[in-house]
């Protein structure tokens, strides 16, 4: 039997198992059926219930506007799968191609997709984390209980960590008129993701909305009362605050422990894969039948010097799932690379924040459009003279343009004036490279429009 016949047979009668039945898992399953896979499909998930959407959990659910139960992900089509829910996978055997479940069952597969995502990083002292009134937000149940605590009218909410989730929750506290303190080790909110300049804007926004923002401090201890209810927090600068709700928003831990011993390149940093979403083994060799998608994946990006990047972004999970599903069913020559420029959005303090690219891959930033004081602007990020990312505050409609600049390694700072340029934009050097020339430092550019035609070419080939 030729390899084309083998592939045909697999598409018809093969067995695909998806571990992690959430956003990436569901979208991959839908794409598999869409592309004509008629074999058996098994969805393994440790959560009970249908796959649901997480972004509303720190937004509409906490305002009380959308009940946590109403966040079920819409189904694009029937996926005709066997669902094994409420039981975690706890092993992967690549010699015999089986997923091992915690309840002792073994599930055989021809190809497997791993999309086990991340879980919330808990408070580092277990006894303190267990206090009544201490929350994390990753699941529907988390959001539901936090929403209940907020509805009870707490005297003050303490949020530990001013990343996106922490800042969104702070915003909702203010919307609901609940006093809130935000503690952040960095000098400003969002600094880790967006850098100091935007961090400064985020800090202004929080303070303008009455958030008690404390930066450059660490929470050292959560103190409970005799009934085991959280009451007070201690800070590294010796101060304390009284509050009855604490939200631990310190990011996530990748769900890879279950792969220990599997021989995959999996660890606290995620599961390494190629741009085709095929997992790498410990040696860095590509496996043929093991695919990865979503928050748990760590994927090289040619635009960013082929560095392995993991992203906790909704759109990334959806797009990777599509590419992984396509590649699971395709011969080598028909496989797609996952080359999307990352995008992320957040809503806080009435401002829609959106980014394209990888803002941390940058050495400079400049406001290119709009007005920072009005919280309506676009800022472009540059690395060694080329555009690598952009962030907008209430100006998201422009980002497609910046995506193009990133894809084509356009020079940084973007040279041409636009109608809405801020007066306080950094002075621009006189000597621009022509807009048609690629900036120094770029090795590749992305070409193509649809997933099927998107390719990377070496920069020198592209514009000869």
């Amino acid at each position: 039997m030729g390899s084309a016949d083998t592939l045909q047979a697999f598409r018809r009668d093969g067995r695909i198992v998806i571990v992690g039945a959430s956003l990436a898992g569901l979208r991959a399953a839908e794409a598999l059926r869409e592309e004509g896979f008629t074999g058996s499909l098994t969805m393994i998930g440790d959560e009970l219930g249908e796959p649901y959407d997480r972004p509303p959990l720190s937004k509409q659910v906490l305002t009380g506007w959308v009940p946590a139960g109403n966040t079920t992900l819409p189904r694009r089509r029937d996926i005709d799968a066997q669902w094994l829910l409420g039981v975690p996978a706890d092993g992967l055997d690549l010699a015999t191609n089986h997923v091992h479940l915690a309840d002792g069952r073994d599930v055989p597969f021809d190809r497997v997709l791993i999309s086990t995502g991340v879980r919330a990083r808990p408070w580092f002292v277990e006894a303190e984390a267990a206090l009544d009134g201490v929350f994390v937000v990753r699941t529907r149940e988390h959001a539901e209980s936090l929403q209940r605590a907020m509805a009870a009218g707490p005297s003050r909410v303490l949020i530990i960590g001013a990343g996106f989730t922490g800042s969104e929750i702070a915003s909702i506290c203010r919307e609901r008129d609940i006093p809130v303190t935000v503690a952040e080790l960095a000098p400003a909110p969002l600094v880790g993701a967006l850098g100091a300049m935007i961090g400064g804007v985020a800090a202004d926004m929080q303070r303008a909305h009455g958030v008690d923002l404390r930066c450059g401090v660490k929470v050292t201890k959560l103190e409970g009362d005799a009934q085991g209810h959280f009451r007070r927090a201690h800070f590294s600068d010796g101060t304390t605050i009284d509050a009855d709700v604490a939200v631990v928003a310190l990011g996530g831990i990748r769900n890879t422990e279950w792969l220990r011993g599997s021989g995959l390149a999996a660890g606290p940093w995620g599961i390494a894969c190629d741009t085709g979403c095929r997992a790498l083994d410990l040696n860095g060799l590509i496996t043929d039948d093991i695919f990865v998608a979503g928050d748990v994946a760590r994927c090289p990006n040619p635009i960013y010097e082929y560095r392995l990047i993991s992203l906790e972004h909704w759109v990334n999970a959806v797009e990777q799932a599509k590419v992984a599903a396509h590649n699971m069913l395709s011969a080598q020559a028909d496989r797609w690379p996952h080359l999307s420029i990352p995008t992320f959005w957040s809503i806080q303090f009435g401002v829609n924040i959106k980014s394209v690219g990888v803002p941390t891959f940058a050495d400079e930033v400049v406001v290119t459009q709009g007005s920072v004081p009005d919280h309506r602007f676009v800022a472009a990020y540059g690395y060694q003279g080329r555009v690598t990312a952009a962030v907008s505050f209430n100006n998201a409609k422009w980002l497609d343009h910046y995506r193009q600049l990133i894809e084509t390694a356009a020079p940084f700072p973007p040279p041409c004036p636009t109608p809405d340029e801020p007066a306080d934009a950094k002075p621009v050097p006189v000597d621009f490279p022509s807009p048609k020339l690629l900036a120094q430092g770029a090795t590749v550019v992305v070409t193509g429009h649809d997933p099927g035609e998107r390719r990377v070419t070496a920069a020198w080939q592209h514009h000869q």
Partner: protein
Amino acid sequence: MTTTHTPDTLHRILDHSSRADPYPLYAELRKTPVALQEDGSYVISTYRELTGILHDPHLSSDVRHLSRPMPAAEAHTTPSFINLDPPEHDRLRRLAMRHFGPPHTPGLVTGMEPDLTAVVNGLIDDFAGKERIDIVDDFAYPFPVTVICHLLGVPREDEPRFHVWVNAIVDSLDYNPKTDPKEKLDNGMQARNDLTQYLGGLLEQRHGRPGDDLLARMANDDGPEGRMTDDEIVSTANLLLIAGHETTVNLITNGMLTLLRHPQILQRLRDEPDLIVPLVEELLRYEPPVHIIPWRAAYSDISIADTVIPKGSQIMLMLASGSRDPARFHDPDRFNPDRQDNQHLGFGSGIHLCFGGPMARLETQTALTALVRRLERPTLVTDPPPYRPSPILRGPIHLHIKQS
């Protein structure tokens, strides 16, 4: 992708004899995605380049940034936000949106549904006993005009007056000094002044008298960004009245024409009323009411598809051509309401994305659903029907049908 001269194709598109079916000419145009014209302007016709340029912050909607002055009537009045750039555009659009949509006025459009249905049914009731119906005069025109008048707070009885003005304004949009009589432009400018005066008069009565219509709301608003000036309110009202007139009429008429040309789909819509939602999306792709954005200005040098469009150039955007681009849409010349991923350019894209889009959708959905449900085996009297002059806002001037 190089720049060449293809003046012939564009001129043939603008010629009235092509109005019934410009699509083969668009296909010709798309062979050169960015085409330099003899007069120094550029025509963009492919989907990728259109979406690219519509999101390009170096593209300006303000005539003052054209190096060659604009003869058309809009050069001479207080610009409405459609002809402005950020930050002014953003501010005015936001101030207008406060009264028209979410987050400040959620549910305004969906809340109109019962009224829309009542107007539509009233008009169809009047078809009774008529053997021949003009979908334009008897239905597709009076319906959106009634709606926009009600929404803005313009007396419906004044329609015969401003109808003339609106026609003259639309007529002057594609004014070409080389081929058109100067009268066409003068009429347009005069009509703009008349309409502005008229709306100014209505606005005056609203000051200090809060009410539900948009004029009253804009006149008495006390939002965080303050109030629009009277000039700004009048230019906004101007824009909404004209847009409310001329686009939905064509969308509904094009829709009915398309359904009559596709009887199986018409029958399907009778059987599955929910089909109307994707069907109207497909209509916006397949027979959109706005075919062309007649001009934009290059604020700086714009590079697109390896072409640099120099600062100050006039750029013409062939939206309807982009929505039929086979590089973006599979089998683009087929009307297929089941189409997936239908990101058409029917409402444009980017910051000027049609402000009235949600309302136009709902009006058209309501109108076509009712027509299909209530007309008895309708048939077209002439195909193709006669078309209005404008290549920009394209649609039949009459659409006669018979029912049995």
